[in-house]
């Protein structure tokens, strides 16, 4: 949560210290940002609920799952981007996240890949 680009309104005896990492903070602009995030989250949750109750006759189950997961991913992006400041982080953090994504994808990918990989003679449903 460190890359803050807005101008500061310091009312404190420690003026200048919050610029230790080359930035300042504006309380009101953050409040506005938080209101935006909250509205986005409420909207995303409403959309997920709506998608989950779509009629099964018109929307197949995989389509509904894809829709719900897409909305959840967007919601996660808003939270991570704005609240965790991932939209303006240091290269070090992005590198770390790239490795995490690689290993996470591997974890899920290997599971899916091995899903039908039964030893000979295994009885399944």
């Amino acid at each position, binding site marked *: *949560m*460190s890359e*803050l680009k807005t101008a*500061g*309104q*310091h*009312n*404190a*005896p*420690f003026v200048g*210290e*919050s610029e*230790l*990492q080359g930035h300042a*903070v*504006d*309380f009101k602009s*953050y*409040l506005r940002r*938080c209101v935006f*995030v*909250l509205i986005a*989250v*409420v909207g995303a*949750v409403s959309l*997920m*609920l709506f*998608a*989950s109750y779509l009629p099964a006759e018109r929307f197949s189950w995989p389509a*509904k*799952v894809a829709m*719900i*997961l897409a*909305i*959840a991913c967007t*919601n*996660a992006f808003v*939270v*991570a981007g704005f*609240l*965790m400041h991932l939209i303006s982080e*240091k*290269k*070090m*953090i992005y590198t*770390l*996240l790239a*490795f*995490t994504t690689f*290993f*996470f994808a591997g*974890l*899920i990918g290997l*599971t*899916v890949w091995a*899903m039908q990989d039964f030893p000979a003679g295994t009885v*399944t*449903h």
Partner: protein
Amino acid sequence: MEIPYAVHPRPDTGIYNAKVGIWLFLASEVMLFGALFSAYVLIRVGTPPGGWPHGWQNVTLGTLNTLVLAVSAITTLMAWVACKVRQFGKFKFFHACTLLLALTFLCIKGFEYDDHLTHYEIHLVAGSAAGSIADGHMVDNDPQKDYVVIKGRYANDEKELIDLRSQKEVQETELKIPRSQIKDMQSYGPWHNDYLALYFTMTALHALHILGGSIVIGYLWGPGRKLWKVDPEHFTNRVEVSGLFWHFVDLVWIFLFPVLYLM
């Protein structure tokens, strides 16, 4: 001896050490929850058609918990912003809000757990008039009595109990069942089926993270605030690191909610 780069960023990474540390920790957390999510995928896809439960969770409570966590993520961020602008009173207010919201989340989750653990599926001996299964919440299970009382309904097949979302209205009445008619009975705990095993494992692990985060936030709000007087920037960094953890916990819930409540 002073710990280096607790406040000032390291020249090579551009950030202070605790922040690198928390991101490494969060990366390991992604793998921990990732393992559980991959287990979910494996078990869910392997379940025969029509065998996965739907509508077993209270979506209203799940939605409420989602919003509670979202607001708590915002109060956590505002607590950090308050530290940055050196308004300690606001920091205390926002962090107190976060703690209250965390407590609210855990209370709602506890209520949901209690609802599952008092919900029983009772298999009846062959030839019982009403049906082969009685399903509902336990009202009276006094071992001294030769009957149990549940508030629920009878079903002829377990399949009737799998997809509750497609059943618009379920009439529940108080059922008095003699113990002599009971073949076996089991509550809707993690032992009941794969879905509930995953539900309890994933949500309990998440709730433990909420509890752990609350303890850290409580420490910063309480005894840990002494640091503010000595080194406010160092204290602000601690608030930031705890906030990053809290946002991660919120992120996990953003996926747990649809996966366990809606899909």
